C-alpha cells in the first residue's frame, strides 16, 4: 500500500516534469499553425525546418557556442582544480568563493554585469561576447564536478609515479588525469547543457544581428512561435535521449565484444 502510494507520487512528479515536453513533441506534428488547435498530423515542419535559414543559423550558433564554451571551460576549470589542490586552504576557499558567484548570483545580474563590462571596454557585441559569457558561467560547473574527484585523489600515486621515474607531465597525464576523467566528463556535459539551455545571459550579451535558439524563440514569442522550432527541439531532445541510452548500455556492449574476441 505504502509502496503503491510512493509509485503514484513519483509518477505524478514525472508527468509534471515531462508533460510540457510531450506537448511540444505533439505540437511538432500539428498541421495547424497555432498552438491552440489540433489540425491533423503532418511532417511538413520537419522538412521546412531545414529550409529555414534563420533557424539553421541560430542552431549553428547555439551548438558552436555550447561546444567551444564548454570545452574552454573544461580546460580552464580542470587546470584551476589542479592548481587549487596545491594551494593553502585560505587562498583556495577565497578562489572557490569567487568561483561560486556566477552560480549563486542571479543570471540577470551576471548578464547585466557582463553587458556593462563589454560596453565599458568597447567590445563589439556578437558571437564573441556570448562565447566569453558562456565560458564564464560554465567554469563553476566544471570546477564543482572535478574538485570532489581531486579531493579523493591519493597524493601518493602522483609521488609514486615520480618515484618510478615519470616526469611531472607524464605523472599528471598517466596517473592524475585518468582519475579525474569522470569528473571532467560530467563537468563538460553539465557545462554543455547549461550553455545550450541559457537564455538570460545570452539575452544581455548578444547584441543585434546574432541569435541563438533561445533568443530567437524569445523574439518569436509575441508574433507566435514558428512550428519548425517545435520540430527542431524534438529532434534535439530525442537525439540526446538516444545518445544517453546508448552510453548507458555501452559498457555491457563493450564486454560482449571482448568476449567475442576471446572466443
Amino acid at each position, binding site marked *: 500500500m505504502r509502496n503503491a502510494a*510512493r509509485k503514484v507520487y*513519483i509518477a505524478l*512528479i514525472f508527468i*509534471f*516534469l515531462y*508533460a*510540457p*515536453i510531450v*506537448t*511540444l513533441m505533439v*505540437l511538432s506534428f500539428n498541421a495547424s499553425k497555432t*498552438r*491552440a488547435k489540433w489540425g491533423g498530423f503532418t511532417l511538413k515542419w520537419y522538412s521546412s525546418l531545414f529550409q529555414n535559414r534563420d533557424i539553421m543559423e541560430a542552431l549553428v550558433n547555439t551548438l558552436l557556442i555550447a561546444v567551444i564554451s564548454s570545452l574552454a571551460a573544461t580546460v*580552464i576549470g580542470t*587546470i*584551476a582544480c*589542479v*592548481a*587549487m*589542490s*596545491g*594551494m593553502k586552504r585560505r587562498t583556495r576557499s577565497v578562489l572557490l568563493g569567487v*568561483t561560486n*558567484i*556566477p552560480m*549563486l*548570483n*542571479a*543570471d*540577470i*545580474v*551576471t548578464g*547585466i*554585469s*557582463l553587458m*556593462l*563590462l563589454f560596453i565599458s571596454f568597447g567590445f563589439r557585441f556578437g558571437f564573441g561576447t556570448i562565447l566569453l559569457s558562456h565560458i*564564464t558561467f560554465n*567554469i563553476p560547473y566544471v570546477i*564543482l*564536478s572535478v574538485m570532489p574527484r581531486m579531493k579523493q585523489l591519493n597524493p601518493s600515486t*602522483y609521488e609514486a609515479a615520480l618515484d618510478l621515474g615519470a616526469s*611531472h607531465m607524464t605523472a599528471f597525464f598517466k596517473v592524475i588525469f585518468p582519475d579525474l576523467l569522470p569528473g571532467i566528463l*560530467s563537468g563538460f556535459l*553539465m557545462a554543455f*547543457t*547549461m550553455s545550450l*539551455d541559457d*537564455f*538570460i545571459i545570452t539575452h*544581455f550579451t548578444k547584441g543585434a544581428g546574432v541569435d541563438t535558439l533561445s533568443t530567437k524563440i*524569445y523574439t518569436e*514569442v509575441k508574433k507566435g*512561435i514558428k512550428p519548425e522550432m*517545435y520540430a527542431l527541439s524534438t529532434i534535439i*531532445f530525442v537525439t*540526446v*535521449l538516444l545518445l*544517453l541510452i546508448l552510453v*548507458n548500455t555501452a559498457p555491457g556492449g563493450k564486454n560482449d565484444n571482448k568476449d567475442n574476441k576471446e572466443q
Partner: protein
Amino acid sequence: MTSKSKWLSAPYVLWSVVFIIIPLGMIFYYGLTDKTGAFTLENITAIMTAEHRKALWLSLLLSLISTLICFLLAYPLAMILANMKVSQHSFIILIFILPMWMNFLLRTLAWQTLLEKSGVINSVLTFLHLPNINIINTPYAIVLGMVYNFLPFMVLPLYNALSKIDENVINAARDLGAGSVHTFFRIILPLSVPGIISGITMVFVPALTTFVISTLLGGSKILLIGNVIEQEFTQASNWHLGSGLSIVLMIFIILNMIASAVFDKDGEGGIL
C-alpha cells in the same frame, strides 16, 4: 606541485578577475552614479517608488511561495528516491537534468498550451467532471512556471543530502525507541539541513530574479522586479537605474548566501 600551482592558477585567476569581479564592480559603479558620473544613492532609493516597491513585493511573495511549494513537493520525492537505493546515483540526476535539453523558453511556453481555457488540462478536467482552472496570465501561472522550472534544483540537493545519511544512524534512532515521526523530525530533517539550505538558495534566487517566466505565463501586465530591471537595460536604456535596482536585488541574494554559508559550512549540499 605546489611550486607550479602559482602559474597554473594564473589563467583562472585572471579570468575570474576580468569576467566576475570587474563586472560586479561595474554594477556598483553604475548603480552608485548618475549620468554625469557623480555619486548618488538615487538609483538605490528608487526601489521605494510605488511601482518598483510593488514589483519587488510581488517578486518576493511569488518566489517565497514557489520555494515553499518546491520544498514540500521535493522532500517526499527525495526521500523516496534516496530509499530506493538505485545502484546508479547518476541515473536519478539524469532524469532531472534531461528536461533541460528541451529549450527552457519552449518548455515554459508549453504550459500555455496546457493551461489554456480549452487546453489539455481543462479537457481532462471536463472529462472527469471536475471544475476547470483558468490561471493563465495570473500570478498562479507564474508560480506554476517557477515550480516547474526550478523543482529539479530543489530535488537534487535534497536527494544528495538524504542519501548521504548513514542507514545505521536511522537504525540507531529506532533502536533507541524513536518512532517514525520522532526519527524524521529529530534525525532525518536536521541531518538534511545542508541540502535544504542549498535547495532553497537554488530555487529562491532564480525565482526572485526571473523576468522570463512572468513574461511568458503572466501576460504583459504582471511586472516582477526582474522585468523592471530588464526593461531599464533593453528598452529605457537607463543603466544607472537598472544597476541600482540590481544592487537592491543582490542584497537579498547575499543575505541568502550568508544563510547558506552559516548552515552549510562544508559545502555538502551541492547539486552534483
